[in-house]
């Protein structure tokens, strides 16, 4: 199965496609719904996947942004994300990948330490977002944010590209991570 490559297909007119990867189907579905509710001038397409690689039989549009959703309460989600990462082309990590960690709010339920996810995101030089997807308001805000990111990654925002995004998002990162 071949690795997923960015920019290997022509973009659809005014369409932006996001791929959400995670083991929590319900959360992904809710997030997708929230994203579609968000106000946006581009036509949004949301694909969900439990893990990578994707089957090649399906005809799918160009994928502009991949979000790996890690549930801090389950080790399985982290493991599956880590396995999925191997099936991505390196060019994707030039700003077209983001990590989303959910469940950090309830500390007692966490079976994965937050640092693990931070390190993972840092290893792949990709932005890491924290959000409790179970709470609707937070989910809506995150969906808004993701839609904005997706628009940039899809090239719908003139003057900004995914590469800019990478350096822009780094500012919010913890500076001590540079030493990791």
């Amino acid at each position, binding site marked *: *199965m071949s690795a997923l490559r960015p*920019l290997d297909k022509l*973009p659809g*007119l*005014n369409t932006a496609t996001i791929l959400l990867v995670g083991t929590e*189907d319900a959360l992904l*579905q809710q997030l*997708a*719904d929230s*994203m*579609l*509710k*968000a106000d*946006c*001038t*581009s*036509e*949004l*397409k*949301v*694909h*969900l*996947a*439990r*893990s*990578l*690689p*994707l*089957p090649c039989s*399906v005809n*799918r549009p160009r994928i502009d942004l991949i979000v790996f959703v890690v549930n801090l309460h389950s080790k399985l989600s982290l493991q*599956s994300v880590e396995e999925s990462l191997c099936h991505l082309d390196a*060019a994707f990590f030039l700003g077209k990948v983001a990590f989303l960690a959910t469940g950090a709010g309830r500390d007692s339920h966490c079976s994965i330490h937050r640092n693990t996810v931070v390190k993972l995101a840092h290893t792949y030089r990709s932005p890491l977002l924290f959000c409790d997807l179970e709470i609707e308001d937070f989910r809506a805000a995150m969906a808004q944010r993701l839609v904005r990111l997706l628009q940039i990654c*899809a*090239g*719908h*925002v*003139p*003057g900004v*590209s*995914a590469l800019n995004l990478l350096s822009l998002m780094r500012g919010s990162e913890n500076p001590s991570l540079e030493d990791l």
Partner: protein
Amino acid sequence: METQSEEQAVTKPADSGGEGGPPQVAGAQAARPEDRMTLLLRLRAQTKQQLLEYKSMVDANEEKTPEQIMQEKQIEAKIEELENEVEEAKTAFEMKKLALDRMQLSTALKKHLEKVDIKTSVLMDNMKQILNLNKLIMKSQQETWDLEEKLLDVRKKRLQLKQASERKLLEIQTEKNKQKDDLDSMENSDKIKAIQQNLETEIQITTVIQHVFQNLILGSKVNWAEDPALKETVLQLEKNLTMI
């Protein structure tokens, strides 16, 4: 992997008709021409941006080829170079930070000094003491410099003396050698030898004459001890001429 990949649930919820769709649906079907215009302009900007991205991608891929050809050593050298650059940047940054810190400190101090009474402040006392200490340091440094200069002078003189004595010694040596050579040449010359031979024969002759005289005096049976002048002569004849 295959089983997992089957689980991929591609949802295309409301591809254009869903909640995400309304704007462009409205744009496509709007009766107002301005909406259409804005939509077209936006699409143009989008296409331009996407074209730019593809172009940069192509450029990046083209740039990659020479890098792949490059030898590992070159890459290592380059890495070193870049690391050096990073180090330089770091040091520059540190320097700037230090300068900034100093400036901030000085401004803070200034502000503080403006507020505080000059005569009573501990800071001023400290400053004065520091100034005094600085003066002292400068003075002692000057002294050390002077002393060092003197030491240097003395060393210079010593060196000069040493050189002069060396020269003199060399001269003495050559002079001695010369004398020796002269002596050797004199001893070996024919003239000296002839003179020595002459001297030897003369000495022999004189000894013979002495002996003859002695025997003459003794044979004449004169009491030579009574006459002092004669006595002296006889005694003189006793001298061994080779001992001279």
